[in-house]
């Protein structure tokens, strides 16, 4: 029985005079590990920002655990949803301070110091992300991967029920990619954290997510398990690329192999419109 933990109905939003989404519907159960995939410009970021609240809705609703997001204050939203953006802005703070700020939504209106409990939570997630040794370093002085981990630790410190991530591994090396995805996977399984992330690496998407949402031209074109979504036809229609899909020898999950030029007989085209099928 699917409980509709995250329910998006008829969502419309967009940039005035520019790209917009019209009447999207999406539901996720509690504890889902969902990925949004699609080409650049397919609407992934727009959908993402409409859930985080960075873009205003022009129609429809987003309901999380029976609470409509538009009716909540920013603080109430921050207690439920934590966001990790693709590019993390740095500031003149240490890693520890950055992570601790995740507790801000839980501070009383006029208190300004963190309780012992707050510090404990922050330290727990710093340990989880392996940042304990860096805790006194300024975030301006750490590597990209460490910065991403800091942002994730801070988001986890918020104690959210829904974690939103925008391409968390996009510009990181394999070490951090694997580390972050593994950690999120464990948190999802062990603590029941619902995860929704934009992900461009289809293999990571297929390997970790239990639910995939494929976007194309501002619409959700396909939804389902990785096996259902990651088919050569779907990928051709959404990405305009011909690929081979095999089964992972250990996990059995779909693994995408891109073609070498000239192998399949069908040439990859350079135009922006994918083939209609």
């Amino acid at each position, binding site marked *: 029985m699917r409980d509709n933990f995250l329910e998006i109905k008829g969502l419309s939003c967009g940039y005035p005079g520019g790209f917009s989404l019209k009447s999207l519907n999406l539901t996720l159960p509690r504890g889902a590990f969902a990925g949004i995939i699609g080409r650049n410009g397919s609407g992934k970021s727009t959908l993402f920002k409409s859930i985080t609240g960075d873009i205003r809705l022009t129609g429809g609703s987003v309901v999380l655990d029976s609470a409509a997001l538009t009716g909540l*204050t920013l603080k109430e939203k921050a*207690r439920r949803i934590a966001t990790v953006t693709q590019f993390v*802005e740095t500031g*003149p703070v240490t890693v520890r301070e950055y992570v601790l700020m995740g507790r*801000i939504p839980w501070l009383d209106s006029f208190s*300004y110091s963190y309780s012992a409990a707050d510090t404990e939570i922050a330290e727990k997630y710093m340990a989880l992300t392996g940042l304990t040794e860096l805790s006194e370093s300024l975030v301006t002085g750490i590597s990209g991967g460490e910065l991403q981990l800091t942002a994730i630790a801070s988001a986890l410190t918020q104690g959210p029920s829904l974690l939103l991530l925008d391409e968390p591994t996009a510009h990181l090396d394999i070490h951090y990619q694997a580390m972050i995805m593994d950690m999120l996977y464990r948190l999802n399984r062990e603590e029941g954290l619902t995860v929704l992330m934009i992900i461009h690496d289809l293999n990571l998407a297929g390997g970790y997510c239990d639910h995939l949402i494929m976007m194309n031209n501002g619409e959700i074109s396909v939804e389902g398990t990785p096996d259902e979504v990651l088919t050569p036809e779907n990928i051709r229609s959404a990405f305009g690329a011909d690929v081979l899909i095999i089964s992972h020898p250990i996990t059995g999950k779909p693994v995408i192999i891109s073609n070498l030029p000239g192998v399949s007989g069908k040439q990859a085209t350079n135009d922006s419109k994918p083939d209609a099928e």
Partner: protein
Amino acid sequence: MSSKGRGLKYGLMLLSSVFLLLLSFLCSLAIGEVPFRLVDVPSILSDTASMEYGILTHIRIPRTVLALAIGGSLSLCGVILQGIYRNPLVEPYTLGISGGAAVGVTLAIVTGLAIKGIPLSIFGFAGALVTVFIVYALSIRNNRMSTGKMVLIGVMISFISSSVVMLLMSMTNAEQLHGIIYWTMGSLNETDNAVVLTLLGVSLLMLASTLLFIVPLNAMRLGESKARHLGINTNTIIRILFVITSLMTGSCIAVAGIIGFVGLIIPHISRMLTGTDYRVLLPAAFLNGAIFLIWCDILARIVISPNELPIGVITGIFGGIAFIFILSSRRLKSRLL
């Protein structure tokens, strides 16, 4: 260092700043054309008929209190604005407030309105308010304040204002010219004790009210986007802080003219000493600004004694030197923002 240890360290720092402020205050009372000994001050205060009493109560105490209030306020405004705009070159005057005030005062002097019993400070304040209103109105788009836009508009207004002031100056006579220029260089010579006390009260009130914004300001160090994700309503907060700092700056300008650099330098120096956590930074900026301006005022009085330098000259020179020194030290520069 544990957070308790850190808390202790900063607590001690603030305490020593308070002590330094007290010391500076007393020095300012003692130094001048007629030198007092600090130990004599209490006896002078009781001898209400003496000339020294007159000097102390009508000249030195008002000046020192004013230096405290204005130095503290401008520095506080500077540290808040630098936090909101995340730009190390922002100071209370970057938003064009001083330009607007200067236009207001120059207009008043040139058109002769100033003579009709209305003090110049009213025109200065009015000019500042008009500028604030213009910047505010032009910076809102889709109900959001664009901080980048505000800085640009402010800088533009500053340029336009200085041109207008120069235009007006070219149309005046020598006596008016002197008055305009002297006003723009800043002076702590306000002798109406009611005004002095009011400004002190307002600046302390402002300090107290900004303490309510410590958490949002701390969060905004990571950018507006992150702050919003943490539940901080940056729109509202930026607007409120903008209005508070503008009114405060306008009041300071109205009373003492344009005293530059305090709002630019002292925040940076404070950051170097106490870090960027606003729990310590806000009170530290206020205290350091007050101490700085008191000493600038003392210098203004004694450097070419018995003549007096306008205080804007002293803050400009010392502020400028300090700024260059900070920028050339790499270790200090890393703590800038």
